[in-house]
């Protein structure tokens, strides 16, 4: 993975702009996709509340595209975000179809802008915290312990017997059973969706989104398999009540979406044949 010195990102904006054509794609310098988005947003030189999410999505996708063109490996979280932004972009560009139970593209964009503002506010707060007078640099507490200390911290207790029997029991239990811990090999679509929820909150419309996820996350040759296994995973999730699945007719696209927050009175929706 090619690398830019982190200082490259601390250039004043004007300077950065002039460097832009050579901007080397470096994903390792960022604290995740939102951080990257924030950096890109700053190049728009407007207040975060007035940011154009459409322009930002294009900047981000362009960034990822260049990374891929350079055959740079991009971490999955960044690709998930790319898929989401590609989806969001397509919705922002198309006239909105009336789908009352779903948030509009404008709402989704506003949510994303709010997340960026939130992260920025937290960063400022953190920076403010770190500039305060701090123990151990600007001021010091009493350094020498006194016998007369009127306070004493919370103590914990356990006996050596507890310790040894706990050790022996566990080792013995494990030695006498056969237990394998499964190692995760690749990102499943389910994991991608989880990452997406972490990144942008709940997505309502997974069917169309999955197309984007697969495009960004999966090697072309693997796409069919991934589609198949994600289908079976989806069926599992329908069974668990996490998903709703619909199909207009045989061979028509499958429509699936996340079930609304669990409300006890709701019944599992049956899938149409």
């Amino acid at each position: 993975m090619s690398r830019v010195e982190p200082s490259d990102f601390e250039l004043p904006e004007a300077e950065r702009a002039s460097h832009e054509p050579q901007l080397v794609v470096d994903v390792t310098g960022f604290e995740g996709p939102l951080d990257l988005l924030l950096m890109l947003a700053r190049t728009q030189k407007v207040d975060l509340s007035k940011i154009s999410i459409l322009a930002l999505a294009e900047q981000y996708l362009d960034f990822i595209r260049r990374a891929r063109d350079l055959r740079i490996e991009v971490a999955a979280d960044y690709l998930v975000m790319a898929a989401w932004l590609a989806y969001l972009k397509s919705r922002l560009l198309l006239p909105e179809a009336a789908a009352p139970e779903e948030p509009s593209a404008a709402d989704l964009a506003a949510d994303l802008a709010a997340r960026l503002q939130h992260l920025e506010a937290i960063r400022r707060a953190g920076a403010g915290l770190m500039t305060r007078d701090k123990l151990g640099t600007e001021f010091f507490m009493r350094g020498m312990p006194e016998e007369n200390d009127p306070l004493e911290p919370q103590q914990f207790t356990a006996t050596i017997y507890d310790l040894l029997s706990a050790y022996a029991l566990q080792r013995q239990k494990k030695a006498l059973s056969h237990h394998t811990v499964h190692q995760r090999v690749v990102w499943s679509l389910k994991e991608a969706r989880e990452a997406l929820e972490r990144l942008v909150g709940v997505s309502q419309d997974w069917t169309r989104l999955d197309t984007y996820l697969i495009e960004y996350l999966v090697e072309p040759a693997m796409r069919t398999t991934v589609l198949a296994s994600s289908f079976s995973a989806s069926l599992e999730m329908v069974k668990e009540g996490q998903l709703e699945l619909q199909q207009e007719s045989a061979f028509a696209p499958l429509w699936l979406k996340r079930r609304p927050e669990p409300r006890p009175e709701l019944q599992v929706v049956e899938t149409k044949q």
Partner: protein
Amino acid sequence: MTALRKPLSIVGAEPLSDENQRILEAILFAASEPVDEKQLIARLPEGTDLKEELRKLGDHYAARGVNLVRVAGKWALRTASDLGHRIARDTPPPRKLSRAAIETLAIVAYHQPVTRAEIEEIRGVTINTGTLDVLIQTGWVRLRGRRKVPGRPVTYGTTEQFLIHFGLDQIDDLPGLDELKGAGFLDDRLPAGFSVPIPNDVSTLRDDEEPLEESDPELDPEAK
């Protein structure tokens, strides 16, 4: 050991301090942590006007190299902050926190009680296990309890040590709190019916929290 008890004279001398001032001073001096008013009262003669005694002591120390401060709702003596550079030399400089750790600390401070998933949601990345561990080891972050939702995730909050380290009397003295509050970022996660959008480090668990496993026999959610 020779206590210097020369006659009072010269510059810097002062009228003989009264006994209450001596006791207060000794307690605050000997304590390893800030002391709350209840503990101070308990060690002073009955009927003492604690506020007045503290004010006197504060005055006495105001211009000196050690000051009386109110921190974490308690009282402590600490060196004056303009003298830090004179003292810092004999202690190793404190470790600098990474950006990830600072951000995580800020989220815990401003959004507490907060779960790991909520921290990840704000930052948009998974947190590396080590980051919360480092913050806990510094003593600034603690486990509060568990959120009463499926999976019973641990909730995190700040400690008294956090307030002491950053010289805060109480958690709502956090810098920039108004900005976050004004933008509505602090109330989005509050359970319905809970209307005070400020971080809360009171150790009493909230309605949507329950205790950690310690001492809870049922607990062990680990033994899957």
